[in-house]
């Protein structure tokens, strides 16, 4: 990865993604230290970068991380209601993880599936034209697949 860039520091964002993937979906202090070393930047710099972008997590997410978009187009066709429904269904608020570690919810800004709204991402997969019923089905399917 480092060889694809002229300066080591340029690889920071992809490497943080990789470190996050390998660490179960979040970045620990060791991950941060390691990435800082191989990119030859200070840890302050890495921390600053992590706090700037929304995708880097400092806490372990659920097995299935539900990223629900509530931005303008999704909002127009029920994105916010979908979020509320999911929150009450799972008993957790956006930004947190369930006690059993199965699900976590994150409220997203536009995820780029506007014409197929409401849309969500589960871990890395897009699910489009989701409504409360199909959401319930999805949760059920995922719950049966621990």
């Amino acid at each position, binding site marked *: 990865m480092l060889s694809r860039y002229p300066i080591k520091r340029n690889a920071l964002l992809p490497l943080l993604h990789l470190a996050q993937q390998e660490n179960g979906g979040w970045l620990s202090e060791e991950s941060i230290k390691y990435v800082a070393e191989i990119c030859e930047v200070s840890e302050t710099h890495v921390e600053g970068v992590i706090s700037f972008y929304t995708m880097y997590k400092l806490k372990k997410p659920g097995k299935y991380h539900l990223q629900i978009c509530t931005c*303008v187009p999704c909002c127009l*066709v029920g994105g916010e209601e979908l979020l509320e429904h999911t929150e009450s269904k799972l008993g957790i608020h956006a930004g947190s993880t369930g006690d059993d570690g199965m699900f976590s919810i994150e409220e997203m800004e*536009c995820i*780029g599936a506007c014409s197929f709204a409401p849309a969500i991402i589960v871990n890395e997969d897009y699910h489009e034209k989701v409504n409360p019923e199909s959401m319930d089905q999805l949760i059920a399917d995922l719950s049966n697949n621990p």
Partner: protein
Amino acid sequence: MIEETLVLFQNIRNPSYDKSLKGYKKVGGFKALKKALKMKPEELVEVVKASGLRGRGGAGFPTGLKWSFMAKNTGKPSYLICNADESEPGTCKDRELMLKDPHQFLEGMMIGCYAINCKHGYIYVRGEYFPSIKSLNEAIDELYAAGLLGENALGKGKRLDLTVHTGAGAYICGEESALLDSLEGKRGHPRVKPPFPAVSGFNACPTTVNNVETLTCLPFIVNEGAEAFKDFGPENNAGTHLVSLSGHVEKPGVYEVRMDVTLKQIIYDLGGGIRGGKALKGVIPGGASSPVLTAKEIDVEYSFDALGKAGTMMGSAAVMVFDEDTDVVKLLHRITRFFNHESCGQCTPCREGTHWARLIVQDFLKGNGNERKMKRLHRVGGNMMGTTVCALGDAAAMPITSFVTKFPEEFEKYYTQAAA
């Protein structure tokens, strides 16, 4: 009754299209690259200039002209960076291209690299676009395997590499100088310009940043010529383009049209009109940062220039339609919440203004509105225009001022019952 004009979507609309390298070559893929390699880079730039291609990312800047700004003979490598950080609310067109016809886009990117003497191009894809990233990486692997990338890609001894670089969740990184900072491994703060990227961009080297769709137009331009591209549209608004239609229409989706159709035609002919037979209240014509249009204003030609004259903008060609039942103040609140969340925070007007504007709209929703606060909202939001480092300040200001001006009765619904 208008229909789509298929150029970019020609393959995608074919249900039996095989998007692999083999499939793309079967329908004539990579002929354009071969043709381009026979021209000199300077000639290629002139062809693109003559075609009238304007940037499809939101600013609509003439692409050929942008390429001609590249600093030459600096001794530093030149870079072409593709902006695939599609984050403007309402926009989902680039992902269609990357997901369903990656080779067409990649061919365009390679043509672009050749035109500006770039040896290693980067495609900055937003981090959430997992399917697109996968699709692009698979396609690029195919190209390396076939020898179309790597050594001798652009001719004997002329190497070309492409790397997909993932973003990590920041709308501001779609702004070209913030994208460059993010690509360099820093926080995505827009830079003060001058110096412009064409002089000092990625790692202080001459750089051009182009949108996915812009680059995807290149194979057609090279194959069929500049005039053919120009023919598609009105003067100064050449080519077909992709419109992301969403909101309260029967048939939301991404459609490819010429620029001489009207917004009304897009909504009613292609989009099937308002769902549930409701009446239209308003349209956001060019992504969340464009001034809103009321139902009476939609009979406007959907082109860069005509929309500009009508007091709004094309932006990323994301049309968001809302019907008579929509709570406009709630809609504005969602928009201000978006900009508040996405502001990078470095310059004073945007950092404080997006936050304050959002708080005022929230106050309205709580039932505390009054005329004084209306004026304040207009002032606070409007003051971000022209005073910030980058265009996010302008983008945040325009929805606020346009909503307040065009839908005052909606806000009055939230005025307090008690005297102001």
